[in-house]
């Protein structure tokens, strides 16, 4: 456990010292502020009510979950795996006394921490923006539940990118393949609606299940189990490939 903790702290330190995640977080802030200004102008001067008190945060989530959040995840995971394999910096981590299983888990845990951190960061900014636009406090519980639920499919996507990054030969190919797979899976769910329920990308908006007046708990549980199944399979696959990778 001590070795896993040490490896996890190392991963967090490395990511926080990189520029890309900071730039992407800054972009999230810019987006939220831009959206806030737009909504405020429309609400105040055109007479069109674009969003209610809680809806602004949800609107931000519904846009970022298909754009900046996956991009943030791709950058983090590609840097963490393909980037370190490509420039050989991974040797420092792999020659530590921690086993490869622990190194892999520490990377996944660090990625999960940053994804969740970024989600909550955007949630807080958007909730404050929402309070400013509508001059009353949004339904924080509902917003918190939505952003927390949004973590699961993004985390599954992070595991897919980790897997791609271990297999691929460089950062560019890992980055391109990850984007291609994201677009392909989203495209497939549009073209073949009958396979939609099996694709994790079609559950990117599953947080909407807690937004209606009636909450279908059995459906939430079903989707949660599908996403957990994906997570377990991808973690096992990633671990296996990471263990066998020659440096």
């Amino acid at each position: 456990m001590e070795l896993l903790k040490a490896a996890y702290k190392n991963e967090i330190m490395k990511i926080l010292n990189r520029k890309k995640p900071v730039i992407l977080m800054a972009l999230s802030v810019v987006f939220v502020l831009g959206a806030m200004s737009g909504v405020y102008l429309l609400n105040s001067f055109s007479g069109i009510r674009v969003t209610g008190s809680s809806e602004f945060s949800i609107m931000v989530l519904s846009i970022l979950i298909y754009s900046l959040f996956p991009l943030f995840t791709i950058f983090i995971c590609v840097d963490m795996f393909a980037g370190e394999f490509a420039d050989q910096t991974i040797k420092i981590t792999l020659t530590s006394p921690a086993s490869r299983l622990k190194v892999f888990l520490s990377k996944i845990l660090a990625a999960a921490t940053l994804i969740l951190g970024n989600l909550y960061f955007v949630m807080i900014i958007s909730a404050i923006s929402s309070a400013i636009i509508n001059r009353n406090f949004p339904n924080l519980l509902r917003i918190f539940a939505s952003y927390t639920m949004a973590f699961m499919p993004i985390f599954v996507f992070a595991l897919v990118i980790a897997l791609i990054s271990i297999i691929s030969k460089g950062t560019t190919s890992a980055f391109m393949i990850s984007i291609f797979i994201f677009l392909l899976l989203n495209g497939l769910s549009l073209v073949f609606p009958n396979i939609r329920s099996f694709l994790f990308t079609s559950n990117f908006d599953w947080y909407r299940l807690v937004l209606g007046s009636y909450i279908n708990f059995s459906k939430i549980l079903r989707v949660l189990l599908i996403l957990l199944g994906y997570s377990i399979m991808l973690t096992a696959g990633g671990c296996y490939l990471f263990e066998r990778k020659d440096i």
Partner: protein
Amino acid sequence: MDTAIVIENLSKKYKNNRGIGDINLKVGRGEIFGLLGPNGSGKTTAMKIMVGLMKADAGDVIISGFSVLTAYEQAMKNVGCMIEKIVPFPYLTAYENMRLRSRFYNSLDDKQIDKTLDITGLLKYRNEKIKNYSLGMKQRLGIAMAFLSNPNILILDEPFNGLDVEGMFQMRKLITNLSKDKDTTFFISSHLIHDIELICDKVGILYDGRLLAVKDTKDILRDYSSLENYYLSEVDVNGAS
């Protein structure tokens, strides 16, 4: 003498059919073992397998009584290593790179980091980003990272590469002192025969993926005028077979 490293039937073949085949070797505790061989002979492959960077096709490596295949954490607990050229994280400082390693050892504090950086002559560059370091400075940092935890066993692949004359002298002194004073075991690979001759107690010759011979340096120097002559003779007699 207590055995620190045991290599058993170690084999690894690449797609181009190069690699290493059926290597067997024992290194005693406190010994300085030198693995000599030309470029492409399989030195780095053998060392990568020893520290778990690569998986062998067959065979095993036992370090301090533990297999790197089945008990990696116990085997590597007291091992420091530097394989090929070290690539520290360029966006971190020397201190931060050292912290990446020290976190794995509860007993290591900032004092130990500073002490190790001082030994390798990098203390004054402690807070400089690695992207501003020269090749020699990166090599020194790699050595510092390997020595940081005061390991019982050090596996160093071409440790003299990129070092200046003074650095090479200091490195040789450090290795011999640690072996003498702290009974530290060294497994060093190099193609620099002179350095191997100066510091190693025992020498193994790896040629074309095969371990041709293992002999004490003092016996070699008794029978041959230099290690170079011994090496050429071994390669001539056994290298082609």
